[in-house]
């Protein structure tokens, strides 16, 4: 393996632990291939020899038909058994390999912070990663095994022919080897560029499509949809052009393979005839030699296609490698140095830059005494969610620091940090498991009664009663089992169930009508008594019950104070924001 295959090395290493099973797969594959060659070439010889023997009654009588006919039957059996055994072992091996690959990949990704992952393009990246693993699992079953078997089969064919005519055997083996190398090599070389371009055009096209679908209302209203549609279709056509190039390449390698096969078999038959005439080679072996070549070529026929895919596998491995190497994961100490004295949060001169040139947080300072309920307001993009990401250590501040109970946040172990905060993010993820398991993430020990009563308090009671198996039901895959507002509330339930002393809720009532909003806010207050609450919101409902209000703008604090004090100040932003219609 040269340096260009270096990215595949971690995956080849994974194969070592299953070497025996994977080796057995190769061996059984070889048995099947060898039996196929043996069956057809022995049959060919048997026919020639018996036809020759059958010319006179005496030779016909003395001809030992027992051995060849037993051999033919033997190969028929080993071919069938070998094929079955090979299928079972290679699949078993692939699955085992897959399990290890997934685990090792997950362990690579796990230390990365979600914000780092999102910078790659979030869910698209995750789909890619999953596809990449699937692409890699073909390495053993489609590339390594057939290549090894082909090599051994070529040697075998050379030996079988060579026993009777060493020169022909040698020449045949060399010709087969050349065919076995040329096809895959050309396919890999020529296929690299179109295959890479296909991938690029495919990704670009998908992004383009998703963006246009998101902007569909505008595009339709402004009568631009048909123009965008044509651009998109022509983009897809360009991609398909590459697919056509790849198919043509595969077609050309089939032609090349057949040409080489034709030349080899013709050469071998002609040479065998020559040897039979002038060098006393038994003429009944001519059929054996020809049919050996014919069957042997089957072992190399599919190699070019597999090697054409090798580029794809390498790119998949390289992408996984890239993730491993680009970002330095955020480090947590194994154990906490000094335990925090309480749950007071001190944010001091915190600055964070996510996009070069734009400070998302700009020297922000804010103190939350233990047990205080604070609502954080501000226009979208003012840095509220980034502040949450800093508190959960998903982003590394450029300068400034955060202290929890008088202890620097960075000195807390991951376990201690997570135990001190319960967070409901804007994007609530429902796992493909029962609703009960989904809630248990927040409180592993809680019982059904706690779950049900909290869901009811949050106004999800009627939703729950519609679920066929209650808490045992699973969410729908497309994500249609809960509406946006219901999903947010489910996330709130998870956070409220956790016993953590600090509760952080990011826009928990977005997408709710006023009535449900009041109900949710009341539940939040009830369950955060005695706990610190950081509530990020765009809504004004029930904010007078908060201890403090803070308003952010462009990464820093615009104003902060008690609701009544801010309300009383007619020049405050809070006062302006309250100026809306009541109905």
């Amino acid at each position, binding site marked *: 393996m040269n340096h260009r295959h270096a990215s595949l090395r971690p995956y080849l290493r994974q194969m070592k632990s299953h070497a025996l099973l994977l080796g057995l797969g190769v061996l059984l594959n070889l048995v099947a291939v060898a*039996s196929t060659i043996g069956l057809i070439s022995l049959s*060919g010889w048997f*026919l020639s020899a*018996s*036809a*020759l023997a*059958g010319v006179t009654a005496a030779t016909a009588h003395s001809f030992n038909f027992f051995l060849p006919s037993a051999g*033919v039957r033997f190969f*028929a*059996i080993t071919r069938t058994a070998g094929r*079955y055994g090979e299928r079972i072992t290679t699949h078993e091996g692939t*699955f085992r390999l897959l*399990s290890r690959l997934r*685990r090792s990949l*997950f*362990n690579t*990704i796990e230390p990365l912070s*979600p914000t780092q992952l999102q910078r790659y393009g979030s869910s698209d990246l995750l789909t890619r990663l999953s596809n990449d693993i699937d692409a890699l699992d073909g390495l053993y079953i489609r590339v390594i095994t057939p290549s090894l078997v082909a090599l051994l089969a070529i040697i075998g064919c050379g030996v079988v022919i060579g026993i009777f005519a060493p020169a022909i055997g040698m020449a045949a083996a060399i010709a087969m080897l050349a065919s076995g190398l040329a096809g895959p090599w050309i396919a890999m070389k020529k296929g690299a560029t179109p295959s890479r371009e296909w991938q690029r055009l495919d990704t670009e096209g998908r992004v383009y*499509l998703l*963006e246009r679908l*998101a902007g*569909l*209302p505008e595009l*339709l209203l*402004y*009568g631009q949809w*048909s123009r965008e549609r044509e651009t*998109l*279709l022509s983009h897809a056509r360009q991609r398909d052009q590459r697919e056509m190039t790849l198919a*043509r390449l*595969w077609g050309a390698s089939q032609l090349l393979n*057949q*040409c080489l096969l*034709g030349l080899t*078999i*013709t050469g071998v*038959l*002609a040479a065998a*005839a020559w040897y039979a005439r002038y060098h006393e080679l038994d003429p*009944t072996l001519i059929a054996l030699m*020809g049919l050996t070549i014919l069957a042997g070529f089957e072992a190399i026929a599919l190699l070019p296609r597999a090697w054409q895919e090798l580029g794809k596998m390498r790119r998949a491995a390289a992408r996984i490698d890239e993730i491993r190497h680009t970002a330095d994961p955020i480090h947590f100490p194994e154990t906490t140095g000094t335990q925090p004295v309480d749950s007071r949060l001190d944010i001091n001169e915190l600055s964070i830059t996510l996009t070069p040139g734009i400070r998302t947080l700009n020297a922000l300072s804010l103190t939350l005494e233990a047990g205080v309920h604070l609502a954080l307001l501000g226009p*979208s*993009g003012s840095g509220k969610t980034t502040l949450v990401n800093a508190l959960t250590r*998903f982003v590394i501040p450029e300068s400034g620091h955060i202290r929890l109970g008088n202890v620097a946040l960075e000195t807390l172990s*991951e376990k201690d940090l997570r135990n001190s905060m*319960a967070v409901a993010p804007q994007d609530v*993820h429902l*796992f493909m498991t029962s609703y009960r398991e989904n809630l248990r993430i927040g409180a592993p020990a809680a019982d059904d009664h706690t779950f049900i009563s909290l869901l009811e308090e949050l106004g999800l009671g009627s939703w729950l009663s519609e679920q066929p198996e209650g808490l045992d039901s699973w969410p729908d895959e497309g994500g249609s089992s809960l509406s946006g507002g219901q999903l947010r509330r489910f996330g709130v339930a998870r956070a409220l169930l956790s016993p953590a002393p600090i509760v952080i809720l990011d826009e928990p009532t977005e997408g709710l*009508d006023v009535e449900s*909003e009041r109900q949710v806010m009341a539940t939040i207050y009830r369950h955060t008594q005695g706990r610190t609450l950081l509530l990020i*919101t765009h*809504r*004004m409902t*029930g904010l007078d019950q908060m201890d403090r209000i803070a308003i952010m*703008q462009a990464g820093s604090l615009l104003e902060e104070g008690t609701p009544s004090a801010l309300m009383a100040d007619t020049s405050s932003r809070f006062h302006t924001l*309250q*100026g809306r*219609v*009541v*109905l």
Partner: protein
Amino acid sequence: MPERPTARQWLSRNARRASFWPLISVAAGGASTLLLFLLAWAIAGIVQKMVLDDADLSTLTPYLVALPLAFVGRGALSWLKTEAGTRTGILVRQSIRRELLEHLGERGSLWARRQHSATLGNRVWDQVDALQGYYADFRPQILLSGLVPLMILCVVFPLNWAAGLILLLTGPLIPMNMAMVGMGAKQRQEEQFQEMTRMSRHFLDTLRGLTTLKLFGQSRQQGQIIYRVSENFRRKTMRVLRLAFLSSTVLEFFSSVSIALMAIYIGFTYLGQFHFGDWGHGLDLFTGLFILILAPEFYQPLRDLGAHYHAKAEAEAAAEDLIPILEARATPPEANMPSARWQVPNSLGLVLDNIHARYDGQTRYAIEGLTLTLAPGDCLAVVGPSGAGKSTLLNVLTGALSPAQGTLSTSDGEDVARMYPGDWQAALGWVGQSTSLLSASLADNLRLANVDASDQTLEAALNEVGLLEWANSLPQGLSTRLGEQGQPVSGGQARRIALARAFVRQAPLILLDEPTASLDQDSERHVMAALSRLKASHTLIILTHRLDLLQLADQVLVLDNGHMRALDTPNNLAGTPGFGPDTHGGTA
């Protein structure tokens, strides 16, 4: 509406989209079998000449010339078959994708919004691609797996009926064998397909939920869980596979046994042990070898079919997803197409007469009995709590939702429902709550509203919303690329770009949905200023919660639960109880 076709019917119906290309694949496969006869003839001929006839080497010439040619021909035909198959798949996919996208435009934004945009994208892109293997490989192979064995039988039977019988019996009649492969492969592929999907889904699910797991301190142990789930799936899948592989093994077995039987039968006939099957005219080495070479090829198409079976399972799964979108086509609106096109006037007023509107599948009206008149150049503000019908009104006005009852017409009496599609929309400008910026240049993003707008128009519009200075400061000015991998744009700037589109649009009626919600102060100031300038020359309809926006309005429409609760000037309304600054609800 006609009944929806099954996935299978739909798949075979769509094969037509590739015109003659599928036939070429099949023809290439058939022609390749003819060349197979030629190469078998050549090999068998050489052996016959050398072993029995003791002929001169020069008599081999025709065989030695034909043999490589047969292989080259077969190679060329494989190429043709691959190319024709791929082209078939591509043509079908391109045509289906076009229809899907056209259909999206016809169903409208309301329908599209109800589909998750990622799901919709997945259907248009990936699910359509999943059809490739079915059209490129599987479908031609079905025909070939009937055609090729039949061709071989037709050649073998006249030569030797016993050999023909061996082929016929060991492949217990092709249709039966096909059904068997079908059933076995179907079960195998489907179960494996399902298990594999389930496993990768768990993996993907864990990756997507990584943030949640981290927040609750449960991400570290997931690696081991993934391994366990994966191993569990392996055990389950292998149990299925061990049985399912038997079906292809049976085919393998028949093919091996038939070659063995054939060899033994022919060999024993030569040795004088058997005396049947040759129609009485004997069996020479040439014929025996010729038949033997054909024997493995008799089964090959069936084995290939089994290998392509997953393509069929994939395509059927994709078809299930695509059929509901493609087959539920709305009745084409051409029925009562007006003859004359409507010209967009310079200023536009509206008359709503007893409008009732509801969404597909709902029984309740979202708007009920709305009647109002809006004079050209007037500004109407629409207020009301969530669910009062504000968005529905907007959908009716943009033409995304047709009123179930009542009429929407212009102040000079043109019924909007009777206009040529697109004519009405040409009179509208729209500023939504969330602005979709496209990954394109700033100019292209503005020209979305009017393709023909000059650079001067664009600059004037940017000036109206206070963005001209910003635009001039960009590295490439108007041609600067926005969005992903381009110039980052803040939420406030995005909203102002959307507002600038309304100026570029030069349409008489502008619809605005919460134009000042969640904006920073600077953007808010610019938006307010731009709105008062827009008001001078346009008819405006503004959905809002904000009192300061109401001051722009000539009339305020108060909606509640789909009904009109009040329609009056803001000053008159200010006196009514309950209408005033809110301390309980609303959006900042």
